[in-house]
């Protein structure tokens, strides 16, 4: 993967680059060692072991295994359930990535201001992040039940006609899940955008204001380019977590009704622990890894190019 990497900096915002040969390039190499050791031992090695087992018939439980080559992968091609899960995953990821970043960025921009309640509001919008995703999922399941809070509120404000079977209707369920995920994740994105906004110099904004730029133009043409680092980070993170989404979906619908909200991650789980086809699950896991890798890399290259423009 690293062969295809360009030698331009990841995030570049037009700052003059420092001369080489100063303190920077003498940064101690051993600084990398502890992180790399821990990462290699706990993440890389076991994952590659798992990857290796995807070409065997080991069931993750027994003591014997033998090589079966790519049989586990062959079974996935054209498998109806796997294909549907891939489609759902991409739909969910697209909605969540756009929605969560939009909401998170708007909240951060709004709260990076003189608003008096900003400290309290930052806490409020961060509250959902604090819940375990499984718990947030259960909470939303409760809210979205046919007689749950959402339908009750709709009824109370005279919009009873808009009541839905939010999680039981196969055409709606996945969108309901997206709302829950965005609700939970917006505060997460907001925090990263806020950290990015801390780095935007006040006088740049003041200069833009003096030039007569309105708040919207000021945001779009001055602020956004300056927080590109935070944007790249946030988009990549939501993209990846969307593609690997498991907890919220599982808590809310278990992939139902009848598979209509199944994602790649839930199908890997079910294949492994319900159907007990561990080798197939590993193969699905590898496919998921590849999809995540390709999309994340594509997105990364894309935003990076935009950052240079």
């Amino acid at each position, binding site marked *: 993967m*690293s062969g295809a990497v360009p030698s331009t900096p*990841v*995030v570049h*915002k037009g*700052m003059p680059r420092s001369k*080489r040969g*100063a*303190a*920077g*390039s003498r940064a101690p190499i051993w*600084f*990398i060692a502890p*992180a*790399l050791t*821990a990462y290699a031992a*706990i*993440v*890389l090695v*076991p*994952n590659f072991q*798992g*990857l290796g087992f995807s070409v065997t018939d080991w069931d993750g439980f027994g003591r014997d295994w033998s090589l079966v080559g790519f049989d586990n992968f062959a079974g996935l091609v054209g498998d109806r359930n796997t294909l549907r899960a891939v489609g759902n995953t991409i739909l969910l990821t697209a909605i969540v990535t756009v929605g969560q970043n939009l909401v998170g960025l708007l*909240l951060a921009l709004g709260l990076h*201001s*003189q*608003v*008096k309640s900003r*400290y309290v*509001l930052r806490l409020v*919008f*961060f*509250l*959902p*992040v*604090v*819940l*375990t*995703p*499984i718990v947030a999922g259960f909470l*939303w399941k409760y809210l979205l039940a046919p007689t749950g*809070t959402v339908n009750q509120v709709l009824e109370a404000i005279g919009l009873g006609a808009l009541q839905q079977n939010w999680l039981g209707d196969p055409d709606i369920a996945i969108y309901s899940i997206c709302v829950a995920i965005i*609700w939970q994740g917006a505060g997460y994105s907001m*925090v*990263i955008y806020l*950290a990015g906004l*801390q780095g935007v*110099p*006040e006088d*740049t*904004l003041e200069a833009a204001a003096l030039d007569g730029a309105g708040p919207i133009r000021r945001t779009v043409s001055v602020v956004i380019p300056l927080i590109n*680092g935070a944007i*790249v*980070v946030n988009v*990549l993170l939501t993209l990846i977590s969307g593609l690997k989404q498991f907890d919220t979906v599982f808590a809310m619908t278990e992939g139902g009704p009848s598979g209509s909200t199944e994602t790649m*991650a839930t199908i*890997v789980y079910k294949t492994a622990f319900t159907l007990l086809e561990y080798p197939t*699950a590993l193969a699905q*896991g590898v496919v*998921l*890894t590849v999809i995540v890798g390709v999309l994340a890399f594509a997105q990364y290259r894309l935003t990076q190019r935009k950052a240079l423009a």
Partner: protein
Amino acid sequence: MNRYTRRTLALEAGLILAAAVFMVPFVVLISVALRDTNAPIGFLGFTWPLNFGNLAIAWTESAMGASLINSAVITITSVVLIILLSSMAAYTITRRTARWSRGVFYLFLAGFLFPGQLAMVPLYLSFAQAGLVGSPIPVILINVAGFLPFAIFLYSAFLRDLPKDYEEAAALDGARPSRAFAVIVFPLLRPVTGTIAILCALSVWNDFFTPLLYLSGGSSATAPLSVFKFVGLYGAQWHLVFSALIISVLPILAAYFIMQRFIIRGFASGLKG
């Protein structure tokens, strides 16, 4: 620019409205937690008067005290290790311009890709062989290593935006590079460090499956384990379950509130692009 104008007031009103909508699920959570099971249920599920006794029952019945301490030890140790390891690694990765440093960066990024299921069993077998199952060490190590890609990624993005003038000045004064990092660079990274600390603390604190697998039922249960054990024992008694849940997230909320001021204090004044 910094005055509170009519426009700021409108913004404030809009944000408060949004916050109210955001809070609805929490209001329901609290209304269920403080519900009197024998009273008629009112709007948004509240019963009146609020029954704070549920919190007390949940606290004693779930034996949450010890779990909160375990969770705190695991979380703080993990966060400190992550910040140390990732800030150091990210510093060298971004400041070194050699090809390999980019390679190392992408190697760490690759960690984002793996779904948890691939490594679970092999990792467990290794820790079991090392006799570490039942101790918090695997939980800490797994959390630290698992969070490194995110932390290094975030630190790198911000380090690349950070001007090198100060380090270079320090180098000219004859400071060793490791000292320049500790004294000059690390303090400048405060907003990112704060962000990483809180997001990392959160994911370690809420992690359910790793402690379940490695600490299952043992004496060193964590807060989420206690909540779920409680769910097992009290089934659909949602008022007690939600009470336990509220107790279990309070420490992390407090941590965020403290950390927030730390984050917001921002880049040291005087440092401007």
